[in-house]
């Protein structure tokens, strides 16, 4: 669970999913007024999700930036030694993209649309990482995963083969 800067509120991934639903339920007018603030909040949520992954694996989340965003640096850190974690690489980049679209949008329609897309992408990251944490004890689930038996004998090392 990570506390948001300047806020008394602490959110875990479940809390983030609920907060995303709250933002999604806001009418367009409200979203348009607060779009940049909400986009920043969602970017932070993405960081919190990745921090949760890193902390669960006994890592210390970096404060570095990659291409100007801590989110991308955290993803790169989280994927080290876990190739299947790259399955959320583009999801993180898409969060950054939608964040930039919100900042650069020239009208409320584009701003609201990007903000609502950002909600879905952040939600996807949160679901993906929570799923990864859920099955961590079973080994990497993903198709691009490392083998389950990394230190033991493999079939191809057995005398019969």
């Amino acid at each position, binding site marked *: 669970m990570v506390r948001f800067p300047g806020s008394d509120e602490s959110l875990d991934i479940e809390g983030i999913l609920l907060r995303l639903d709250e933002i999604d339920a806001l009418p367009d007018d409200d979203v348009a007024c607060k779009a940049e603030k909400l986009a920043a909040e969602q970017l932070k949520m993405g960081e919190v999700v990745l921090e949760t992954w890193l902390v669960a694996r006994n890592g210390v989340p970096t404060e570095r930036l990659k291409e100007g965003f801590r989110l991308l640096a955290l993803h790169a850190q989280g994927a080290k030694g876990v190739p299947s974690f790259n399955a959320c690489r583009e999801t993180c980049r898409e969060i950054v993209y939608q964040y930039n679209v919100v900042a650069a949008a020239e009208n409320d329609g584009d701003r609201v649309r990007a903000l609502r897309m950002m909600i*879905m*992408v952040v939600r996807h990251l949160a*679901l993906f990482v929570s799923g990864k944490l859920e099955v961590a004890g079973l080994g990497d689930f993903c198709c691009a995963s490392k083998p389950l038996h990394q230190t033991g004998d493999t079939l191809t090392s057995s005398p019969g083969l």
Partner: protein
Amino acid sequence: MSKKHKEVAYYPGCALEGTAQSYDRSTKAIGKALGLPIKELDNWNCCGAMEVKNIDPKLQTYLSARNLSIAEDMGFDSVMAPCNGCYHNLKKAEYDLEHDASSREITARLSNKAGHRTYKAGKVETIHALDWIKDSVGEEGIKDKVKDGLKGLKIANYYGCMYTRPRHIFPEKDQGPGSESTSKPHYMDDLLDAAGANSVEFPLKTACCGGAHTLSDSDTSTKLVLNILQAAEASGADVIATECPTCHTGLEMHQIRAEKMFGKKTKVKILYFTQLLGLAMGLSPRKVGVHENFSESLPLLREKGLG
């Protein structure tokens, strides 16, 4: 028009003979309609999928290498795999055989024991069904064959996670204009737009569908899929186009499950890109296996004049 990949060996893999029969049917149908002969690999075997790879990645390399050796023996220099999992595994085997001495040694040992020639890297290029169409006929070839076209059907193109990852096993991608992108793939968008579709901006085109979660953690899979379906609808899509049988089946099954378990109904339809290309070329829905999908898309297709 490029002549590249005009004649390819065809590796359907297990999924296209099972849950993804409509992908197999529509791939063969559009090959015929476009004048692109394909020849199925003789006596092919499993690519190693995710199950073998998780237990013993070198064994997966051997299994995929055997398929590549069959293609070579049949006189082909390229093998086309429509399934993202098969495509990924054959590409990975090629990469491992080129870069890892231990993979070469084990593949040679197992090939000798199985009594067939050992495949050497660099002899056969593995391509996806998207590369096959894009390289052989391209957008212009599609436009030439289209009859009524897809009539502005709004499509979210969903590539899944294995078509572009990990980057290093796809050296032909990210090579500048015209090549496929691993961060923002576009081949399916290009081909379907050439067939008259209107591809929408879709922020989750390479996001995880939770396919490998399906049995161990169904609720997470359902939530991931639901989010993809809702994002597609929010993007304005009538249809999600797929090019991976695992993703396709996951989207269909979890669309139903999302309604049952979470009361969340989505209307977006799910079709293989090969089915959509076939329909654009005037093939009947039955000819491209629409009746074999779980997603009931016929009413929409009829409404659009495609059924």
